[in-house]
């Protein structure tokens, strides 16, 4: 069967022959395009659109909360509305809840059942977030898991592990690092990493 209208799929990651799953992806995509379920352009546009969702989005939300106490109050009271205030489209379905790390409590986010994640604000979840090891262990021995990420949580700080679902996703508001009083909101945003918004690390001052 010739598909002269469809250029060969780009070769991924070099010269390996396509796996069964890469072939299945291509087969499904070609058939769906031929049936008019979506167009090749729809696929490209969706990928491009999702390329713009990076942890920098979450960083802007956190930096605003660090610099504007009223914004922070709104963010903790109605996270979705406060995130939308900054122009981020959270989408219709999932509820987002922002949880503040304090001197008494450290939050860490997991999705034990799958990979639910605040994608609008952080992009696609990393491999470790989806791993069997992280999903099974972080609810049972969070301090040990955080230690693997280089994060020591003092014994007198409670760790609260929150389990995301398809309909409810969490973002951690990390503590603002000491020594960042003179930084602008943009400079602060640059300190906010993906991992500290998942709660496996803390935000740290530059240098």
């Amino acid at each position, binding site marked *: *069967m010739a*598909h002269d209208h469809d250029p060969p*799929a*780009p070769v*991924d*990651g070099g010269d390996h*022959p*396509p*796996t069964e*799953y*890469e*072939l*299945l*992806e*291509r*087969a*499904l*995509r*070609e*058939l*769906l395009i031929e*049936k008019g*379920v*979506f167009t090749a352009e*729809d*696929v490209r546009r*969706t*990928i491009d659109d*999702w390329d713009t969702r990076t942890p920098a989005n979450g960083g802007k939300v956190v930096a605003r909360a660090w610099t504007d106490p009223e914004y922070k109050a709104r963010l903790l009271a109605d996270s979705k509305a406060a995130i939308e205030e900054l122009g981020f489209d959270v*989408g219709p*379905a999932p509820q987002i809840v922002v949880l503040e790390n304090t001197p008494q409590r450290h939050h860490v986010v*997991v999705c*034990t*059942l*799958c*990979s639910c994640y605040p994608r609008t604000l952080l992009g*696609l979840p*990393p*491999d*470790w977030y*989806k*791993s*069997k*090891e*992280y*999903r*099974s*262990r972080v*609810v*049972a*021995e969070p301090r040990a*898991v955080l230690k*693997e*990420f280089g994060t020591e949580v003092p014994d007198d700080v409670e760790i609260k592990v929150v*389990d995301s679902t*398809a309909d409810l996703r969490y973002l951690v508001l990390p503590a603002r690092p000491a020594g960042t009083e003179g930084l602008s909101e943009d400079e602060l945003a640059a300190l906010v990493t993906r991992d500290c918004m998942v709660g496996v690390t803390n935000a740290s001052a530059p240098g």
Partner: protein
Amino acid sequence: MAGMPGPHDIGGKKFGGGQGGGAKNAGAVPRGEHVFAAWENRVDAMQRLLGGGGRKVYCIDELRRAIESLPPKDYFSLTYYERWVRALDMLLVEKGVLTRAEIDGRLAALRPR
């Protein structure tokens, strides 16, 4: 079904061991991160196009059900987007969008010989 969690339900789970016990927590969290391959990004995009937007071929819970119904050995041996593309395949046939014969025919045509 009731009382029989799928392979996905692993919060707090220990692995290995036999009937006499000995199951242990999984090992260290693997920290390597790969840049998604183009085909993985396309699976992600197709999932979004089929599960969201105006098309709504299925809802997110149906996608999860499909992933969670994979045989446990596949669930743990496949990579993330391999599981997803298997789930899409399953759902598209269930929903009557594509037939098994169409998919198999196209796969045969694409398969290198």
